């Protein structure tokens, strides 16, 4: 019994310590921005790795999710004879929820795990240590551009996801199922608010981008430098990042759209 309480206390302390270390990593990464001349090319490279390479999966998923939403929505709305509300339903679902959340989950699996593995491998092969010996802070050189790239790419990807989703819904709803195109768009435009829906969705995805990248970068930086350590860190990134996204989504939704 005492043992168990002690173990609980110890793992609590360990959690707190990990939180502290990850906080320091975040602090360093945010702090380390000043030299634009050397950092900018690194940032461009990371936006490529994190954003451009995630485009395909985001576009394909967005398209299919938009089409499925239109099919399902049409079936339900059709019963009440209000299928012209299809555009509104799909757009709101995508902009407020599915766009930011699904993008973040895909991002964690596609880019987050790659970030962790890359940084973990750099640590294992002593690249981080040798950088430190050359007199360059690896947090500045390695972690910071990756962090910013994540924070920039996530909202961009989420916007692309939502747009493609709306187009997919248009294809299914209007072109295939025969909903009137005019009322599809005008209904959508009447109910979707630029500030409440689009911008809140963007804010959500910025938060998700920061959190997912933070977790990925920290797990890589904190990897136990063995091949087993890397694989465990990669798994942890995907699991923790997904849970964090879902949890935060609830909180953000409650704050933004709830009656608080």
């Amino acid at each position: 019994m005492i043992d168990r309480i002690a173990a609980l206390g110890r793992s609590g302390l360990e959690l707190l310590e990990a939180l502290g270390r990850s906080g320091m990593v975040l602090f360093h990464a945010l702090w380390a921005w000043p030299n634009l001349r050397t950092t900018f090319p690194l940032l461009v490279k990371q936006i490529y790795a994190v954003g451009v390479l995630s485009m395909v999966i985001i576009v394909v998923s967005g398209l299919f999710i938009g089409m499925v939403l239109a099919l399902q929505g049409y079936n339900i709305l059709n019963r009440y004879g209000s299928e012209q509300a299809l555009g509104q339903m799909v757009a709101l679902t995508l902009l407020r929820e599915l766009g930011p959340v699904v993008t973040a989950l895909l991002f964690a699996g596609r880019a987050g795990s790659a970030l962790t593995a890359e940084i973990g491998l750099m640590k294992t092969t002593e690249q981080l240590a040798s950088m430190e010996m050359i007199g360059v802070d690896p947090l500045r050189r390695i972690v910071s551009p990756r962090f910013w790239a994540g924070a920039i790419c996530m909202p961009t990807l989420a916007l692309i996801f939502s747009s493609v989703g709306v187009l997919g819904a248009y294809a299914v709803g209007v072109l295939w199922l025969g909903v009137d195109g005019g009322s599809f768009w005008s209904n959508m435009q009447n109910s979707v608010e630029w500030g409440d829906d689009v911008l809140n969705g963007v804010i959500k995805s910025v938060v998700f981008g920061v959190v997912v990248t933070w977790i990925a970068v920290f797990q890589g930086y904190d990897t136990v430098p063995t091949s087993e350590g890397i694989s465990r860190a990669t798994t942890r990134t995907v699991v923790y990042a997904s849970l964090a996204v879902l949890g935060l989504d609830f909180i953000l939704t409650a704050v933004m759209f709830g009656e608080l």
Partner: protein
Amino acid sequence: MRVRTLELAVGGFMLIGLLAIIFLALRVSGLSMNASEETYRVVAKFENIGGLTVRAKVTMAGVTIGRVSNIYLDQEDFVGVVEMDIYQQFDNLSSDTSAAILTAGVLGEKYIGLIQGAELDNLVDGSEIYNTQSALVLEDLIAKFLVGRVSDEP
């Protein structure tokens, strides 16, 4: 050369992101670029605005000619006051134009429908539309229907 393709790809990525946000702004949320389009404001008082919201359409003969810009309660007469911005190009609405709160479809959104009157004077900025018809509230209708049925009984 490798670096150039990389930069091009990143540039393309950012461009697509920009297009997405423009698409979402103009096509999906209907944010109009000419938000500062010339309008004039008219008010109308309704006994019940029943679910009308700001930014709802104002139409005439089914054509959108303006938007609801503000809704509040008149605390003397206890009626709902609706302010609407009518696009400047529709400046020949007669002063006895009537306004009704209508519903698109059975359960659809509320909007305002205007019907042109016969007076020669026109509505101008700050005019009031006196001839109004409140929203149909389903509960009221049902209640009336039931009461009517009861009183019809011999």
